[in-house]
């Protein structure tokens, strides 16, 4: 159909539909977010397309190769095109800035219409959920959320949908950990050390695992791997759908049969340990002793490395002795009372609330049925393991079933649902006594109730709040570095030490960065700005390399010469010692050949000779390895400061396990500025061979500037050319093609300023022997004061950290994390209040969280069909 014919057709339709409700002309008058739209393709969308799209996107001029003339109503075959349209229009990419723009309301309605059509059409074809994804949260216009609304937009009081929310993997493991380990109470002298309530940290290999009894291990056989194999551990069962960004929206997850099977398996292990402690995991009871030599007398012969029989546990009890213990100890009778106690204790530990009478009775019966079949021992463990699969042990309901809806259809969370929602916002372990009592006593029903508890919890450092660190991990994504496999040669070129040392350094760095974040949170002043600009560093010894500077070619030459000299000096020293020892040996030999020697004297001389021979052979053997430890590739820094601690896992790798000791220090002058310049963040946004400037650009664009980026078109083979020994910047020239640049313009200039660091996070001034080009630009940020070229990452971060828009975008992300959904226009008042609370309290995270948790979005639920 030609354009003229279409125009006539549209005109004709408009004449007929102009008086019907819900048509273009009427609809343009008012808009309430969330209200269902009326209108089909002909009456609604065609007008918008004609007015704003077809001039450039018809059969005559198909800009960007896109011809919309034949585009009809939304169906499964053209859904991809409609989705792309939705992205372009809501992000205000289209129409181009120089063209006439649709009215705000018209644009919103068109966007909403497309989404609702896609939802309808795709409902039985897998569903359409892109708009609900945290990655698309920025598709809502920032200025409408924080600025004045045009006339005609009428907001409704906001709420979140009723839902059930699967527990997160971290939450699950920490909950289970409470059953078998006792974590230390908070020590104000060592606030960084792992404490009860903190999340179970990942182990030396970055794995999230639950360890049994490792606090009681006093001896094991073999080295690091033998230890890791012999100890009892259970990996996390529940899956995480993604690595980058927010991982935990309610609609992401269920629990499948494979996970349920594993949970049942682990449950029996956990229950047996609760009952018997290490006796449940050893090969022989004699392994539990305070005197390892006693075990040596009876242990099995041969090489025990890696076997459960390789470990000796002390006799000290290191777990809470619960009704499960009482039930199984000795030959104690299986009374209903004892059984009920065990069931109730376990139920509450797993679901965080006491069971109803029916729930308790049901589970008691289940245990009794099992016992009747297989006896007390197996039957109790089998029956009790069912509790681990209770709905509320794996999901948390926010259903507001017992509540009265207000005029907008909203019900406020109450009692246990509200209490557990508040608990989940901050903790992984069950509500503390004060919160539990409030819930049970009917004092968890109002906004004031929530404010009271949240304020109390936030102001008490002894109460651990791992969910805050989780927010920052999801927000910054600084914990991914250890999982990135580096090409050995490419890593060696950075100057960093490779192999396992690299992975360990990165996992350590994630823990260090967490600690730094905690320090800033403790100050609670200008939290975001501090995170972005702090000069503080929490460091291990490895960080002398990672926070160092990559030597230039010339410097490497000089350093190599110095190292060679040092090696020679060490070798000379060894030679001298060997010579000295040889002389002494010759002397002693001569003495021993002497005439009559007393036995005692002879023995002494022989002893002295042997000692020197041993030393000589040691020095000789070690000589080839006795080299200077200098890293010729790096100008290492010397990070000194006060001692502090980071949270690391229990001993998971023998003597090679992670250590909590850290140093609080300052970064070398002029090289770093805040978390985005720390190796943990930089490496997390790199790949096997080099930096990932595009990922870094996306991070800045979305997490700081609130911008959105349409999905990569399916036709694009998004790969940079394989050109060894060229800079990333030069290889990224391919994104400047016209077709690519419309999107890459939003990312590349924001990521390239980080080229002042190599892909192991070391600062560098040259790359392939040329001066580093770390220039970039902030383009189209939405805040004209921000836009403009930057010389490097330091300048860019400095500018961004001063911006109010950036602060507001941060608030949007906090909203998403704590509400578990994307914001919509109705949330504007909540967002503005939260930002004000943050600002008015000097950039206080506590104030921000309190505001969010007492908002309508958090407190109210509405059934969405």
């Amino acid at each position, binding site marked *: 159909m030609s354009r003229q014919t279409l125009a006539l057709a549209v005109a004709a339709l408009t004449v007929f539909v102009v008086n019907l409700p819900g048509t273009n002309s009427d609809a343009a008058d008012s808009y309430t977010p969330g209200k269902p739209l009326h209108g089909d393709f002909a009456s609604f969308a065609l007008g918008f397309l004609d007015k704003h799209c077809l001039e450039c996107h018809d059969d005559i001029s198909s800009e960007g190769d896109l011809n919309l003339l034949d585009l009809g109503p939304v169906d499964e075959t053209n859904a991809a095109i409609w989705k792309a349209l939705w992205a372009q229009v809501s992000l205000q990419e289209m129409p181009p800035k120089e063209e006439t723009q649709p009215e705000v309301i018209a644009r919103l309605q068109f966007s909403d219409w497309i989404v609702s059509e896609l939802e309808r059409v795709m409902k039985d074809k897998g569903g359409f959920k892109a708009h609900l994804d945290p990655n698309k949260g920025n598709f809502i216009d920032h200025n409408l959320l924080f600025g004045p609304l045009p006339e005609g937009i009428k907001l409704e009081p906001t709420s979140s949908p009723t839902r059930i929310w699967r527990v997160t993997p971290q939450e699950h493991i920490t909950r289970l950990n409470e059953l078998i380990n006792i974590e230390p109470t908070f020590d104000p002298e060592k606030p960084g050390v792992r404490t009860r309530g903190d999340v179970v940290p990942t182990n030396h290999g970055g794995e999230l695992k639950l360890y049994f009894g490792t606090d009681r291990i006093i001896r094991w056989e073999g080295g690091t791997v033998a230890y890791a194999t012999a100890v009892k551990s259970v990996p996390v069962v529940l899956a995480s759908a993604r690595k980058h960004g927010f991982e935990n929206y309610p609609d992401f997850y269920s629990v499948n049969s494979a996970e349920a099977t594993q949970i049942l398996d682990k449950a029996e292990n956990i229950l047996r340990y609760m009952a018997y402690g290490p006796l449940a995991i050893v090969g022989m009871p004699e392994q539990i002793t305070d005197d390892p030599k006693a075990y040596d007398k009876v242990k099995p012969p041969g090489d025990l*490395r890696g076997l459960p029989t390789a470990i000796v546990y002390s006799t000290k009890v290191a777990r809470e002795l619960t009704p499960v213990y009482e039930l199984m100890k000795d030959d104690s009778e299986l009374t209903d009372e004892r059984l009920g106690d065990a069931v109730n204790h376990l139920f509450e530990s797993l679901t965080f609330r006491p069971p109803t009478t029916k729930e308790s009775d049901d589970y008691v019966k*289940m245990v009794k049925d099992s016992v009747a079949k297989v006896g007390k021992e197996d039957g109790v463990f089998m029956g009790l393991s069912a509790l681990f699969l209770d709905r509320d042990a794996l999901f948390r309901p926010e259903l507001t079933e017992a509540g009265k809806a207000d005029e907008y259809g909203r019900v406020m969370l109450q009692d246990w649902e509200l209490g557990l929602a508040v608990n989940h916002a901050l903790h992984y372990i069950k509500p503390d006594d004060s919160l539990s009592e409030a819930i049970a006593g009917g004092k968890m029903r109002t906004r004031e109730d929530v404010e009271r508890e949240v304020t109390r919890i936030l102001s008490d450092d002894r109460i651990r709040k791992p969910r805050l660190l989780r927010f920052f991990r999801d927000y910054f994504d600084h914990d991914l570095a250890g999982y990135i496999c580096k090409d050995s040669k490419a890593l060696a070129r950075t100057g960093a030490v490779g192999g396992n040392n690299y992975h360990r350094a990165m996992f350590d760095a994630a823990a260090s960065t967490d600690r730094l974040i905690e320090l800033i949170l403790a100050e609670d002043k200008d939290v975001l700005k501090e995170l972005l600009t702090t000069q503080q560093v929490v460091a291990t010894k490895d960080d002398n390399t990672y926070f160092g500077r990559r030597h230039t070619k010339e410097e490497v030459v000089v350093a190599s010469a110095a190292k060679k000299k040092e090696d020679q000096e060490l070798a000379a020293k060894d030679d001298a010692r060997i010579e000295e020892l040889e002389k002494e040996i010759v002397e002693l030999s001569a003495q021993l050949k002497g005439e009559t020697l007393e036995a005692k004297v002879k023995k002494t001389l022989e002893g002295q000779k042997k000692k020197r021979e041993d030393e000589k052979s040691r020095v000789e053997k070690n000589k080839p390895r006795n080299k200077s430890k200098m890293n010729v590739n790096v100008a290492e820094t010397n990070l000194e400061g006060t001692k502090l601690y980071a949270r690391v896992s229990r001993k998971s790798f023998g003597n090679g396990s992670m250590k909590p000791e850290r140093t609080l220090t300052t970064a070398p002058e002029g090289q770093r500025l805040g978390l985005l310049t720390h190796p943990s963040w930089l490496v997390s946004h790199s790949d096997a061979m080099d930096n990932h400037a595009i990922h870094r650009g996306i991070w800045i664009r979305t997490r700081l500037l609130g911008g959105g980026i349409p999905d990569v078109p399916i036709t694009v083979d998004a790969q940079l050319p394989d050109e060894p020994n060229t800079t990333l910047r030069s290889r990224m020239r391919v994104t400047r093609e016209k077709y690519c640049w419309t999107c890459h313009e939003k990312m590349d200039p924001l990521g390239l300023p980080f080229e002042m660091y190599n892909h192991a996070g070391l600062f560098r001034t040259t790359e392939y022997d040329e001066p580093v080009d770390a220039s970039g630009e902030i383009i189209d940020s939405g805040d004209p004061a921000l836009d403009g070229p930057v010389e490097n990452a330091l300048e860019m971060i400095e500018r961004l950290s001063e911006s109010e828009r950036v602060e507001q975008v941060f608030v949007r992300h906090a909203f998403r994390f704590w509400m578990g959904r994307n914001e919509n226009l109705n949330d504007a008042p909540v967002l503005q209040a939260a930002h004000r609370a943050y600002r008015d309290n000097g950039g206080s995270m506590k104030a921000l969280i309190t505001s969010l948790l007492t908002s309508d979005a958090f407190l109210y639920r509405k059934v969405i069909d």
Partner: protein
Amino acid sequence: MITRRRSLQSIATGLGAAFGSSMFPDLSRAASLASAGGPKRVIFFMQNQGFDPATCIPAGMTSNSSLAKAILPEPIAALEPFKEKLHIINGLHGIHTSPSHSAFFGALGGYRGSDGVAPSASTIDYELSKVLPETLLPHLCIGMDSIENMKAKPTVANLSARGAGSPIFMHSNPNHLYEMLYGGISSGAIRNQHEARSGMLDRIEQMASAEGKALPAADQQRYGEFVQGFNDMNGLRERLGSVSDHLRNFAPVVDDGYTNPEFETDWHDRLLDLGVSALKSGITSVLTIGSGRGEIFGAWKGVGVEEQGHNLGHMVQKDNPIWIKIRQYNSQLLVRLMEELESVPEGSGTMMDNTLIVYTSNNADKQHTSGANWPVMLLGNCNGAFKTGCFTQLDGKRPINALYASILKTAGVDCERFNMSEQMASKYDSGSGPLKEILA
């Protein structure tokens, strides 16, 4: 003697209508395969710590030869009566799997494997289970280790996978495995376990289902997956339970060795019994046996080997009494496998005529190897689909993936390569397609 076909047919007439072809091997398909050759079942026997070619290649044999006049070396002497079914293949490589202490999933997957690293793709045993005649339990894996390890960790996953990040567990506790397969026809303690567990799972499913009724529509689908999961867990139980009469003919006898093993080999023997019975009864068509469970551990005290674990990999295998004993034990297990399969008529011959056994290691030729040589023994000619009774020293540089592609071809799947991209092949495969040297 009940022939397999007759027993299945009689059940099929009764139950086949109710359950359809998914319950029993597809007889019509089996018939067509029987005429075309090719295996109906495949067994993978992976002995850890490496497979030194000197322990299987007849002395002095260096080039392609018949085994007819050769004497098999002592470690595999037990296979002498089955020589005409045997094909010893030397010269495959697995450099790209990074064997070192074990290639883990890479041994049966033909890709890089490493300790603690999830599988990056499916493995050949799983892929075969998808194309061979369908069975109730497509693929069964059993794992043999030291008694402490089998008790402490009754299931581990190191060798088989159904896809990237989806490992398949090996079963090591014969009591648990018996309960899983034959719970419906078991008696005594195992039956009680079975009934207790089934009852509990049913109850959990009911409770979960009840909790789901009041959920908002948006959540029902997600929660429904959770409830459906219990259905899945109970599903295999139910399907096996419904053919329990048929299974009765094949279930092994549960004796003291199950509950009170003196040596780990007592459990190894019984695990093999269970594997064999699963094959004979048609419950499964692919069996993977992990002797040493794909890692560096394992013990064989029951055959008089005192050393265990890592040390076993740090010794020469050739002429070493320890390794002679271990491989002799392996050979005895293989013989038992073959004898059992030969005892069941199938088609115009026996089950063994339609079975392929692949014997190798998950660690190429030894620990700390580069993987440049990966010896394999094949047993069974599958009605002439495979060349047998010979030794082949392969030319060129063909990876173990090529062997797997060859087996797939005989199972009716034409593929140039298995789990190997053209890019990888340019470095790791001097040829393409199946191994002509082993196919008839």
